[in-house]
C-alpha cells in the first residue's frame, strides 16, 4: 500500500474517531440536564430585588414535553408558558416569592420529617390560602427542598375523588389543584441543588428512580448569581 493511501486512511480514522468522540461528549452534556430559566427580577437596579416564581407539579409530563410521558415533573412558568426547566437563575440577596400549583395526587412521605416546613420566612407555608406549620404526611404529594439553604416543605396532594383531574402537562387552573405559597431569601451566590423528597416514581423500587433521579423533572438547581 502506498504511503499516501496509508496517510489518507489514518486521517480518515482519526477524523472518524474525532467525530464520534465529539458526538459522544456533546450528547453527554445534554443528557439528562435542563436548560436554565432566568427569572425576571423586580426592583433590580434600586432597592431589594424580588422574584416571583410560579411552579406547577404534574402527575404525567406528556409526550410533548418529554420522551418519558408518564414521568412526574416540575414545570416553571416562563414568559406565560409552562416549561420543563428545573435550573432557575435567581439574584443574590433577594426575596423570592414562590407559588406552587400541585395537580398530582398524594402518595405519602417516607420520612414524615419533611411534613414540617422550615427554612422559609416564618417557617410555614400557605396552603389554599391558609397558613399551616405542617401537613399530614399521608397527604404529601411532592416536596420541595433545598438542603444547602435548609429549606424543606411538603406539598399536599389533590384528593383521589377530585373532579377534573389533570392528565398530561401543562395543566390548567381549571383542573383540580392545590395552591401553595411561601417566601424565602437568597443570600450568597452559589449553586444550590434542589430536589423532591417524596419517593413518587412509581414502578421503581423505593420510588426513587426515573424522574426522581433525573435533572429536569424532580431535581434541579438554583443558580444564585450576584447582581
Amino acid at each position, binding site marked *: 500500500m502506498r504511503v499516501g493511501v496509508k496517510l489518507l486512511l489514518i486521517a480518515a480514522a482519526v477524523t472518524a474517531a474525532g467525530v464520534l468522540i465529539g458526538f459522544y461528549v456533546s450528547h453527554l452534556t445534554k*443528557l439528562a440536564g435542563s436548560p436554565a430559566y432566568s427569572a425576571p427580577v423586580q426592583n433590580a437596579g434600586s432597592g431589594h430585588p424580588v422574584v416571583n416564581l410560579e411552579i406547577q407539579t404534574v402527575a404525567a409530563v406528556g409526550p410533548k414535553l418529554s420522551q418519558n*410521558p408518564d414521568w412526574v415533573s416540575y414545570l416553571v412558568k416562563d414568559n406565560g408558558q409552562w416549561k420543563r426547566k428545573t435550573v432557575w437563575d435567581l439574584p443574590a440577596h433577594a426575596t423570592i416569592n414562590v407559588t406552587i400549583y400541585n395537580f398530582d395526587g398524594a402518595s405519602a412521605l417516607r420520612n414524615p420529617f419533611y411534613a414540617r416546613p422550615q427554612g422559609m420566612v416564618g417557617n410555614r407555608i400557605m396552603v389554599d390560602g391558609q397558613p399551616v406549620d405542617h401537613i399530614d404526611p399521608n397527604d404529601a404529594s411532592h416536596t420541595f427542598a433545598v438542603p444547602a439553604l435548609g429549606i424543606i416543605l411538603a406539598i399536599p396532594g389533590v384528593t383521589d375523588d377530585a373532579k377534573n383531574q389533570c392528565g398530561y402537562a401543562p395543566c390548567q387552573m381549571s383542573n383540580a389543584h392545590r395552591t401553595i405559597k411561601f417566601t424565602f431569601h437568597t443570600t450568597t451566590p452559589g449553586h444550590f441543588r434542589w430536589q423532591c423528597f417524596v419517593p413518587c416514581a*412509581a414502578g421503581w423500587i423505593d420510588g*426513587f428512580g426515573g424522574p426522581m433521579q433525573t435533572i429536569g423533572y424532580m431535581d434541579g438547581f438554583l443558580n444564585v448569581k450576584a447582581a
Partner: protein
Amino acid sequence: MTVARRLLGFNLLTGAILGVVGWYVGWFGAHAIHGLSIEYFADTDYNELSVYLAYIGGVVGFLAGLGFLNYPLARLRGYPPSLREKEGAGVGRYFGLCTDHKVVGIQYLWGIGLFFFIGGLNAMLIRTELLRPSHQVFPAGTYLTIVGLHGTMMMGIMSSGILGPFANYLIPIMIGARRMAFPRIEALTFWLLMAAGAILTTSVFFGGFPTGWTGYAPLQTEANAGMDNYILFFALVGISMTLLGLNMIATVLTMRAPGLTWTRLPIFVWGVLSTAVLMVLAAPVLVATLAMGALDRTAQTSFFNAAAGGSSYLYQNLFWVFGHPEVYILALPGFAIVLELLPVFARKPLWGYRLSVAGLLGVSLLSWFVWQHHLFVSGINGDLRPFYMLSTELISIPTGFTFLCGMMTLWRGNIRFTVPMLFCLAWFFNFLIGGLSGVFLSDVPSDVTSHGSFFSMAHFHYTIMGGLIFTFFAAIYYWVPKMTGWELNERLGKIHFWTMFIFFNSTFFPLFIAGFEGQPRRVVTYAHHLQFLNDWVSVSAFCLGISMLIFLFNLVWSLAFAKKPAEANPWSSRSIEFQLPSPVPVHNFDRIPVFSSDPYGYGEGPVPNWVPAGQPAGRE
C-alpha cells in the same frame, strides 16, 4: 476465495447484520410479553425485559453471524472434527472467527486497546468535570454514568488484558504446542468481550447508570435502563473470563511438550495458570450475582430488597467474593510479566524460581479469604474484622516473594535499560506505593479514615494502573515485534515511558492527599480548598492522556510507515518464542520441541534449554 464469496460467508458483516436482526427480535418479542406484565411498570416508560432480550438476541445473532454455530451444527450432522477456520490467510481472518491462537491474540490486543482508550477518554472527562468544584460541565447524573463507564470498562476489559492478547499468543508456544486446547472457545471469548464492550458503550442511550463499577443494590434496582447494559456487560465478561481461564488451564495441564516438567515452565505460564484458576472460580459468582440483580429489576424478586426479606449485604458480599479475586486477576499477570522479563534484561536466571511460584499461587489462594476488607465499616459482624485484617495483611507476604525474587534477579546482573525493562522497573516503584497504601487500608482503624475516599482510589490506581497497565505496555514493547515482525521505535518508546511514568505519579500521588483531606469518591462537587489539588491532578491526567497518544503514534508509525523488520531475537532472550521467526509461522514449530531445562539459563553456558524432536538433547 472471491470477494463476493468472502462477503457472503460468515464474517463480521454477517455478524453485525444478524446481531441487529437478533436485537429487534428480542426487543419486539419482549414487548409482546411485557403487555401481560405488572401494570405499574408502565409508568417507568422502560421495558427492562425488552432491553435484556434485545441485547441477548443481538449477541446470539452476532455470534451466529460470525459462524460460531457452524461447527457444532456440522458435527451434529456427522461431519468429522476439523479446524477449518484456521485455514484462512491474509488480513481478513483478523475480522472474523479464526481459530489460530496467534490471530486471536492479536485480535485481543486491538480490541482491548480500543476499549482501553474509550475507558481512558471517560477518565479525561471525569477530570474535566473535577477542574472546578461547583461548576457543572456535565449534569450530575451524566457524570455518574461517565464515572461508571470508566471503571466498568477498565475492570471488565482489562481483566483479560494480559491473558487475552499475550497468554493466547504465547502459551502454546511456550509449552511447545501448536494450538490451545479449545481453539473455538478461545475465539468465542474474544468476540463475547467485543459484544460486551459494545453493549456497555451504548448504555448512554438508555439513560446511563448511577452506581459506578460496583453496581451496589438497591441503587442498582432503582436505576434507569442503562443499568441493564452494565449487567449484560459484566455477565458477558464473566462468561468470557470463565472460558478463557478454562482454556488456559486445560492447555497447560494437558498439552505441554515432552520434557516440560512443572519446574521447567516459564514463570509467565505459572502466572497465567494462577490467574486462570481465579477466573474460572470467581467469574461465575459475578454472573450469578448479576442474574439476581436482573431478576430484581425485571421480575420484582427481592434478593437485595431489605423490606421484602432480602438484604443489601447479600449483594455486597457476593460482589466482593468475585471482586477481590478480580483485582488479583488484574495484578497477577503483572507479577508474571515482571518476573519473566527481568532475567532477560539482567542476564541472570530467575532467582528463587520455586519461591516465585509459591508467591503467585499463594496470592491466588489467599485472595479468596480477604473480601470483607471492602466492608469493614458496613456493619458486618464485629468479630470478623480482626480476621479479615489479618488475612489481608497476610496476603502481602506472597506478594513480597515477587519483590524479593525480582530484586535478587537484578542483583549483580548486567542490566540493560530497554523500553520493556523500564516499564518493569516502574512496576516496582508503583506497586510498592500501591501495596504499602494497601497496608494502611487493611488496618481497620486506618480504614475508617480512608475508606470511600480518594485515598482508596489512589491505592487501587497505583496497584492496577501502576501494576497492570505498566506491565501491559512492557509486554507490548517486548512481544509485539515478535507478533507482527516489525520493530517498535525505541526513542518514541522511551518518550512514552518517561511521560507516562512522570504524569502517572503526578496524577495519582496527590489523590492520597485529597483522600486524607476528606474528599469522598465519585463526587461531582468537592470542598473549595481542594481545588488546587484537583486542578493539578486534572492537568497531569490530561498529560497522561497525551503520553498514551504518543504510544499510539509510535504503534501506527512503526507498524504502518517505518516498518523496520524485527530480528527473530531482538532482546537476546533464551525463551523459546524468540528462537522462532518473527512473526511466528502458522504451525508454530517445524518439529515439536523437547525441553531439558527452564529458559533462564543465563550465565550457565551455551547449552540450549530445548531441541526439536528427533535431535539429541543438549543436556540430561
